[in-house]
């Protein structure tokens, strides 16, 4: 597969996913497992793309919408750059996770830029309301954010893919063994951040015993994730009345 085409598609994907067209749909499109699906389709290396996508996904599991919509990290920017580069360079999943880190943080600034610029459209809408220009309001809500969003987002991901691949390749061959292993350790530790963040946003310390149940079920009983999910649904159903008790206490 032509790398220029891959860079173009990733740039377009990032633009569209972060446009947030379709509230929950785009929220999921931003996730690395969905980006991996597209990378897999284009490169023809589906299995490898999905494995790497899953690895990066874990780090971003708890990164969802926080009050006011400010996200601490952007999974879409990290994934649209790290997954295609990792797949085409045959990197393993932990190394790809390490590669994703800086882009995730950079993505936050892009989102702040977008929401600052978006203040222009609301003022246009104020004037449109005065003139009863309904089409103008629709355009301010849908068309203008999309056009300017393209200018902010497409070049970043296109350039990172187009020029980044060579840089990453040079880096991989140049760095010493201990450093490469250090990146792999980082990749094996970073998912812990995603899980800790999810526990933190659930925000109920009293429920920590359920975390240990899930943990022990896997390390000692070798339970599969699906088995834990089914047992979890059953337990959730059985203990649901505690919700109101907790409120009363």
């Amino acid at each position, binding site marked *: 597969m032509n790398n220029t085409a891959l860079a173009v598609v990733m740039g377009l994907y990032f633009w569209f996913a972060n*446009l947030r067209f379709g*509230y929950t749909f785009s929220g999921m499109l931003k996730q690395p497992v969905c980006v991996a699906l597209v990378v897999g389709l284009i490169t023809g290396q589906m299995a490898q793309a*999905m494995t790497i996508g899953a690895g990066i996904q874990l780090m971003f599991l708890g990164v969802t919408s926080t009050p006011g919509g400010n996200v601490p990290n952007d999974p879409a920017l990290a994934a649209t750059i790290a997954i295609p580069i990792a797949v085409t360079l045959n990197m393993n999943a932990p190394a790809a996770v390490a590669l994703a880190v800086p882009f995730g943080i950079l993505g936050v600034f892009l989102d702040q830029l977008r929401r600052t610029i978006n203040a222009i459209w609301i003022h246009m809408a104020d004037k449109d309301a005065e003139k009863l220009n309904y089409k103008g309001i629709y355009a301010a*809500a849908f068309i203008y954010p999309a056009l300017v969003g393209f200018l902010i987002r497409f070049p970043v991901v296109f350039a990172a893919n187009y020029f980044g691949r060579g840089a990453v390749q040079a880096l991989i061959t140049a760095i010493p063994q201990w450093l490469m292993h250090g990146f792999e350790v980082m990749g094996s530790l970073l998912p812990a951040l995603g899980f800790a963040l999810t526990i933190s946003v659930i925000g109920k310390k009293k429920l920590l015993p359920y975390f240990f149940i899930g943990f022990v079920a896997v390390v000692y009983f070798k339970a599969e994730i699906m088995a834990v999910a089914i047992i979890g649904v059953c337990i959730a159903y059985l203990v649901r009345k505690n919700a*109101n008790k*907790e409120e009363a206490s």
Partner: protein
Amino acid sequence: MTQTKKLSKREVNKAFWIYQLGCEESNSYERLQSLIFCASMIPAIKKLYADDKEEQKKALKRHLTFFNTEGSIGSSIQGITLAMEEEKANGADISGSAITSIKTGLMGPLAGIGDSVIWSALMPIIISIFIPMAKSGNPLGGLLPLIIYTAITMYISYFLIHRCYTVGRSSIIDLLQNGLIKEVIYGANVLGMMMMGALSASYVTVTTPLKIHVPGGSTIVLQTILDSMLKGLLPLAAVLLIYWYMQKKGPRYGVIIGTIIVISLLGSFCGIL
């Protein structure tokens, strides 16, 4: 009072689609979701105030005031607003500021419910269930979460906007006071906690290669000792330490990532990790 002006299912559906498609697209720091909320009311405003341009302008302006909530559960506010605009258009004694204050009063509590159910529980749970599939290279691990999550959340929003339009204000106050919603949140949190435990055990794979040579020729492998105490001790410690730090200092992403990078590189360099 005669009900002469009545919204049809069509206007409610249009409001639903406009808001669901665009509720984050035009989000700005200045007034967040106000622009899209206003846009979603346009079909109803055109119909209800068809013969009064001044009322149309006033209606547009009152929906351009500050608004922000969680979009899936927040569609209930649209339903209530549509019901109130309809009453107002039919001559009921509802001031524009009454509509605005109902909206601003509800947006906070509903954002709280929406964030904790739709984003903090439902989304990670659905992704986690399909993570093993993705990890093994199956494209369904990406496709199924996309379809299932979108379908469930859209169904919830569609149900809420129609329900709240029909039943009006009382419905949402019932919903907020109803024990059921608390039970759903609690259940989702229990499930979420168990999933995080299971995933931490499966995917945080840090181990130590450290070996201690004891005089006399035998070698102690540190990881074996750790395993005999508690399997997965290092991954568990990693997750709990980060969690503990977040509880103390808030979700300082940069500091945590920086620390992980330093520990990983140092650990690798010294041969501890």
